[in-house]
């Protein structure tokens, strides 16, 4: 509402603060990348490595989503696991 009122009276919405905040978040992550390894990338790779020890990962059934925030980031790893995977690993163990 206030935005609409402002627009009515011809004031321009300032977009620069949005730009500033977006850059601060982005650059804090990218600068970290240059010095040390990216924690989220490491987590992603290690999680997938652990899972693939137990089941055959179908790359098409793995979706990884990331959202880098100012104080908190989220890493969402979505792995489709077939229901009969237990059977397969057991069989493999027995065979080996």
């Amino acid at each position, binding site marked *: 509402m206030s935005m609409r009122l402002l627009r*009515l*009276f*011809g004031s321009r919405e300032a*977009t*620069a603060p*949005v*730009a500033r905040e*977006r850059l601060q*978040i*982005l650059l804090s992550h*990218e600068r970290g*990348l240059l010095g040390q390894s990216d924690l989220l990338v490491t987590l*992603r790779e290690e999680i997938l490595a652990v899972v693939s020890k137990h089941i055959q990962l179908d*790359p*098409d059934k*793995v*979706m*990884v*989503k*990331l*959202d*880098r*925030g100012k104080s908190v980031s989220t890493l969402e790893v979505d792995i489709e696991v077939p229901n009969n995977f237990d059977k397969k690993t057991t069989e493999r163990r027995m065979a080996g």
Partner: protein
Amino acid sequence: MAKVLVVTSGKGGVGKTTSTAALGAALAQGGQSVAVVDFDVGLRNLDLVMGAERRVVFDLINVVQGVAKLPQALIRDKRLENLWLLPASQTRDKDALTDEGVGRVIDELRSRFDWILCDSPAGIERGATLAMRFADEAIIVTNPEVSSVRDSDRIIGMLDSKTVRAERGERVEKHILITRYDAGRAARGEMLNIDDILEILATPLLGIIPESQDVLKASNVGTPVTLNNAESAPARAYTDASRRLMGEQVAMVVPVERKGFMDRLLGRRAA
């Protein structure tokens, strides 16, 4: 039939990334399925202009090298469900991209989308030649300024010799997109006018994007200009250009800023 378009210019800072985002969004708004691909390895920015910079997981090099599958690397736009981004790598070396690898990714994109827009890096080096390599059509972004026109001419020569189509004896359809155009200054003879540019480059015109404050406002908030303020002059110009790409006949006009009531009352000048 999918179309692969390269957005290129030779010169940097003329508006390739802005134009890729705006045209990609305009085509998607027109109901087409669109992938925009950033080829600027090491200096990616299409993600930032599209507002997807916090969601990048994999990139073009990961897909070329088989580390990730294409669907895992594609980022869906939060506003338009038929608009997708394939980001460039920020950290790896551009030599990781091979002709064959990029060709495979482009083929896979062709099977999934109506339009594939390749945002070229500036220059005439490997990144730029790879971005244009598999293109069916090219948009040459040109500012009404001597150095930009000269570089556009150089790029046109490369499109006619270094693309797969050129090597097969076919042609890459080329379009000039003039950006940052100021009709007032052109009329006063302070800026190259449209006819001068088209005569020098001997290439048809796709659109004229007026110089406007709305372009910066849109990139500040990470929204393609056609989505941020569809009524703004540059948004209307990009939308017209996207309709021409889809084969529609749209009269070539330079959209002007619509002054609001308060602007007129206070005698403010349009941007």
